[in-house]
């Protein structure tokens, strides 16, 4: 067939022409995904470079004051990084243990029937729009916390935002960790039972350690999702970029500086994503410093989450090699 000269006049010609056209059309679709990445990097870089040529990188990274709108304007990113860190760490403290325990239940204890109800129910948690989580935190969770545990909690606060981010990322931790636990060969469990171990001992002493790289990878991905989470923190944690107040306590005649947890959790804060939304919805003009700052934070966020995704991918690859 390949030795014959190509006939472009008859049916075979139309056919090979059509094959080529289809091939090219599919190729174009694949190119879109590459162009997206190029577009993201390009769009972020151009305006971020514009920003850094007018505002020193050092002051951006180490400045402790973020006030893009009010003079004297100042673009110190540290308060935003602090806000992001607090939300990420708090939500991780909620989601990681819950997620791992859920994964253990799904992979080791749950019957097929329970699993078939529980997994879709958990998937709903991940599918709820984040604006809805934000509203739930602002309108229902914060008043609840105020009337029960923390009478002094602000209307906008870090705690309820973080709790909601935590709930949102539970399914991510649970499903990736569960995959890792399911991939642990059954022979390992049988060996454990053969040695007289109980189900509890097998779960915590054999399955979890054997699946640890997958679990770690799920942690990293979930943290990356928490860092990039926007609407929950925009709605529930306010737009107050600040570092917590440092208090002093007199101890043995020395004044010891410390940060009170209430100043961190019960007060508003502004993570990086929230600052981006605030900048975008204020009436900034293209080409101004504040406009370019939007892209400067954007590229910071992009680099952090990209790095975490790559690390997680590497961890998973390492883990795949062990059992194949």
């Amino acid at each position: 067939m390949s030795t014959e000269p190509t006939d472009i006049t008859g049916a075979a010609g139309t056919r090979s022409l059509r094959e080529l056209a289809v091939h090219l059309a599919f190729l174009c679709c694949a190119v879109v995904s590459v162009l997206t990445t190029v577009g993201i990097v390009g769009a972020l870089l151009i305006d971020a470079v514009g920003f850094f040529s007018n505002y020193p990188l050092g002051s951006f990274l180490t400045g402790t004051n973020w006030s893009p709108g009010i003079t004297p304007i100042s673009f110190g990113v540290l308060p935003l990084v602090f806000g992001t860190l607090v939300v990420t760490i708090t939500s991780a403290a909620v989601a990681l243990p819950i997620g791992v325990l859920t994964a253990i239940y799904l992979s080791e204890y749950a019957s097929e029937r329970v699993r078939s109800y529980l997994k879709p129910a958990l998937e709903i948690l991940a599918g709820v729009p984040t604006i809805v989580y934000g509203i739930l935190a602002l309108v229902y969770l914060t008043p609840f916390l105020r009337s029960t545990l923390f009478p002094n909690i602000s209307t906008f606060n870090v705690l309820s935002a973080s709790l909601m981010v935590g709930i949102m990322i539970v399914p991510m931790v649970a499903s990736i960790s569960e995959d890792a636990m399911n991939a642990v060969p059954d022979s390992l469990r049988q060996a454990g039972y053969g040695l007289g171990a109980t189900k509890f001992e097998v779960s915590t002493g054999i399955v979890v350690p054997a699946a640890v790289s997958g679990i770690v990878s799920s942690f990293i991905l979930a943290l990356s999702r928490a860092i990039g989470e926007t609407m929950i923190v925009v709605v529930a944690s306010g737009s107050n970029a600040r570092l917590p107040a440092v208090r002093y306590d007199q101890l043995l005649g020395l004044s010891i500086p410390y940060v009170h947890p209430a100043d961190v959790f019960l007060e508003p804060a502004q993570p990086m994503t929230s600052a981006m939304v605030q900048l975008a919805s204020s009436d900034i003009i293209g080409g101004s410093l504040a406009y370019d700052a939007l892209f400067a934070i954007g590229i910071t966020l992009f680099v952090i989450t990209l790095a975490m995704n790559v690390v997680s991918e590497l961890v998973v690859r390492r883990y795949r090699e062990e059992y194949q």
Partner: protein
Amino acid sequence: MTADSTATVDSTAAGDTDFGEVSRLKGVAFEYLTLGASLVGIVALAVLLGYVAADAIGVGAADPAWFPVVLLALAAPTLGFLWYAARTPDVLDVIEGLSVRVVGGLELAVALVVLFVVTDVQFLFLLYTVGVLPAAGLYLYGRATDDSRVDFPVPLAVLAVGLLAGYLLKGPIDTYPLDSLIGLWMLGVPVAASLGARWRARAGTAVGLVVGVGVLAGAAAAGYGLAAASGLGPEVGVVLALTPGAFLLSYAGEVALDEPVGRRGLLFPVAVLVGLLAGRLLVSALGLAGPEPWIDWGFLTSAPSRFAEQAGLYPAIIGSVFIISLVAMFSFVFGVGCAVYLEEYAPESGYGGMVTNVVQVNISNLAGVPSVVYGLLGLGIFVNLVGLGFGIVLVAAMTLSLLILPIVIISAQEAIRSVPDSQRQAAYGMGATRWQTVKSVVIPEALPGILTGSILALGRAIGETAPLIIIGLPTTIFAAPTGLFQKGAAMPMQIYGWAFLPEEAFREGVLAAGVVTLMVVLLSINSVAIYVRNNYQRGS
């Protein structure tokens, strides 16, 4: 259960009851701890959404007795029927089939009505009549006669010429049929033809003809009847009669003929209606005051307002459906195209293979990029570089498409990968070309998986807010967008706008009604996806 049995074996084998008891307690406690952890998020969300729903319905105004009365009246026949159905899987299947056609049909109807609202229907009519219809006819003729020259290049040429002619004719022609007739022509004829063909295949030409003509006549009658009865336009009536109506009737007919046991499920709607009527009668007989819902017909069909009582979500609903329909088109075409390329065409070894690998890694990385960064992409490329305009529908749709593209690609790839290689080999063995194999073997086999993934991704897109804020979609807009280049609105944006209003009525009632609307739309989209997955996907 397993924990118990292991513990029992443990204690008898060790011959040491104390040790067995202690470890058993620890094991049981741990099992319940893990179960509790699995439930905590679900329960928390359910409780919070319960509060939202209560606020949206306006529970406060209702008589305490209203709820038990209505619940009993509605639930008794419905639950009784479901209890009966639960023991007969065939009946349950039919109930599921009916519900999904209602939900899916209504979704489609809303999308089509929005299309009627936002586009130039007369222009569409021209393009369809002189371009799409002749091309489709030629294509089908080519397929039927197996003439490979007719089934691809000729229809394509006719389509191109027809579309151009439609564009040129738009100026000179100034008389058009009524919108409702256009609806019957553009939607009714294909629906009638496909249902007629279906019935012709199973019951002969006469029945097929009757069904086809019946669908057209029924849609026209129902459309004008509904319009006269409810005050909606006749075109809305036509769309409603065709999308949920015609398919529902056809499905009911097939069930009634094919499934002697399952057809009892067709009585389910009757049970629900009886419950509704009984509830209504009881409430008015007892003189009970009902709740004052924030979410009602007025909320869904009026524009936003400064006053909470008059606030509505209409422009945002239209905007969301408009944007999501565009997103569905863009992301499905490019997502499935990319997945087919990567799975069926891309080189696997050599330098090409390395490029393929890089593209693959790139796609999984794109899936992890925060949505707000996609907003910056839209702002930087579409608004600033291309200059499309700040906060317009087209930019929103393209940005959201790029956002869900990686998810669509990855799920479509999984679906394509699960098509057994033996089927491809069989197609090649019969002399099929690669495209013929892809078109008639791979894609039909993978379609349910592709659809499930794409629909779930659309569900995600409909709730996205952050990228829309970045590209400047307004939070409140008073008229629905009517074109690609107009300022758009979207449900999550309107909800975001309401979140910060100080007024109590907004923060509790209106906001809750908005959240409930969004969640209902989302859940109905997802339920269609789950139905597709459960019913059409081959067991792996």
